């Protein structure tokens, strides 16, 4: 082993110093990079997210100010004036700086937060959307009766079924009714609003009021099992007119039937778990696939919706998404997989 010379050692030390200085800059850039992304609470794409963002900045800068004052007092007490200080002054500082100031600050913040909450949870407009968190995907039903929240309840039946993608009308307060048949999940679209749990045996509600059109990410924010981190969804915000058209489109049966892909889909038993309205596939276990081709992602928000990805997922589900309930189909040959994937991809 070659020993490191003094010059090299200094250079290495300088490099480490530069690296140490660079880390905060890199961290800041990484932070800045995700500030306005589709999964950021800073995207300001909803009234609630914008309010929470405002509160965050107040608390951040308030925290920075307190940090500077506390450190400043510490430096003052130890460097310019290291000798013993006047006892009365010290006690006053403890009383005002350590008791009165934090109590009043916390009271103001608590009051500010409490005043924000009731309007967020106020009444919504129009029909509700039922969303069921299921290991590890999201069942969606448009056009259900709103307001049926409470304990010892399930989500209202009916509605126009879809999965893993929720279309929302811009500027409308839309009620999302949340439930779950298995374990506790948490519904969170950071760009638009806060999070609310989906709890078995009760129906919770959250109101989303988007203020920007676009596609945003949603996630499960409560650990629910192996594939918890891969239990995502997309939220697509469109104008109210486009929303009405989209719900009508979702209500229609599958646009393409009678293909070889459909035959293979049914012959291999996929219809036992999945529904494709307009065909014999009427399963209720897994996601409704009637319009799966029009969704932006597959496998609950983790893969781009391409025929190749659909084929890959069907062939090796557990490899793509560990813990997924759907079995893999490695026995299908490439030709069959391609036919099924092409058909599903065509279900716009």
């Amino acid at each position, binding site marked *: 082993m070659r020993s490191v010379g003094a010059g090299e050692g200094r250079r290495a030390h300088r490099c480490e110093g530069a690296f140490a200085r660079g880390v905060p800059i890199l961290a800041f850039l990484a932070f800045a990079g995700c500030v306005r992304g589709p999964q950021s609470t800073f995207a300001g794409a909803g009234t609630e997210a914008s309010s929470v963002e405002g509160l965050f900045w107040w608390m951040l800068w308030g925290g920075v100010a307190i940090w500077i004052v506390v450190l400043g007092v510490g430096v003052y007490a130890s460097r310019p004036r290291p000798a013993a200080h006047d006892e009365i002054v010290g006690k006053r500082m403890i009383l005002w700086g350590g*008791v009165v100031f934090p*109590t009043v600050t*916390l*009271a103001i913040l*608590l*009051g500010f937060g*409490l*005043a924000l*909450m*009731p309007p967020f*949870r*106020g*009444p919504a407009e129009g029909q509700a959307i039922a969303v069921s968190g299921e290991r590890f995907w999201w069942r969606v039903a448009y056009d259900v009766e709103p*307001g049926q*929240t*409470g*304990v010892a309840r399930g989500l209202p039946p009916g509605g126009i079924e879809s999965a893993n993608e929720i279309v929302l009308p811009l500027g409308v307060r839309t009620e999302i009714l949340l439930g779950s048949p298995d374990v506790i999940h948490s519904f969170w679209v950071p760009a638009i609003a806060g999070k609310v749990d989906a709890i078995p045996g*009760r129906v919770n509600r959250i109101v989303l009021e988007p203020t920007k059109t676009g596609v945003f990410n949603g996630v499960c924010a409560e650990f629910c099992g192996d594939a918890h981190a891969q239990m995502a969804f997309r939220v697509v915000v469109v104008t109210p007119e486009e929303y009405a058209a989209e719900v009508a489109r979702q209500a229609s049966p599958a646009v393409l039937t009678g293909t070889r892909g459909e035959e293979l889909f049914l012959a291999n038993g996929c219809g036992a778990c999945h529904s494709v309205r307009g065909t014999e596939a009427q399963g209720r276990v897994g996601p409704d696939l009637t319009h799966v081709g029009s969704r932006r992602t597959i496998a609950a928000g983790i893969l781009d919706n391409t025929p190749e990805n659909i084929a890959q997922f069907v062939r090796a589900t557990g490899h793509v998404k560990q813990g997924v309930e759907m079995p893999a189909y490695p026995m299908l040959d490439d030709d069959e997989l391609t036919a099924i994937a092409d058909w599903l991809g065509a279900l716009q």
Partner: protein
Amino acid sequence: MHLLPSGKTRDNLWTLITPPTVWAWHFLLSYITAAYACAPNDAIFEAIPGPRLLVAVLTVVALAIIAWCGVRAWREWQSEYVAPPFNEASPAHRERFLEFSTLLLAGLSFVGVVFVAMPALFVVDCR
């Protein structure tokens, strides 16, 4: 409550933990009140003035008890003032220590009760 010949309280662990105990009971009763009113979760936009008033009464009572404990501790500490720390192994220092500690706990409990009650001030229904 044991009284000393001077008419003052002989402080012990029970007098010390009275303020935080009142805080804990206030929290529990306020929580049960809100849970009882809102658990069915049927009419979430219907105002619940009764339970809010009950929380207000509980709050006034709790604050009064805590304030009384704090004032008593303050008076007795001041009347035979010893500055902290109360390091001597003597009955007088033991008393001053307990009185001073009770005063601090009363202050903390007072703020705690106010913070616990604030949601009932801002939120008028079960939403």
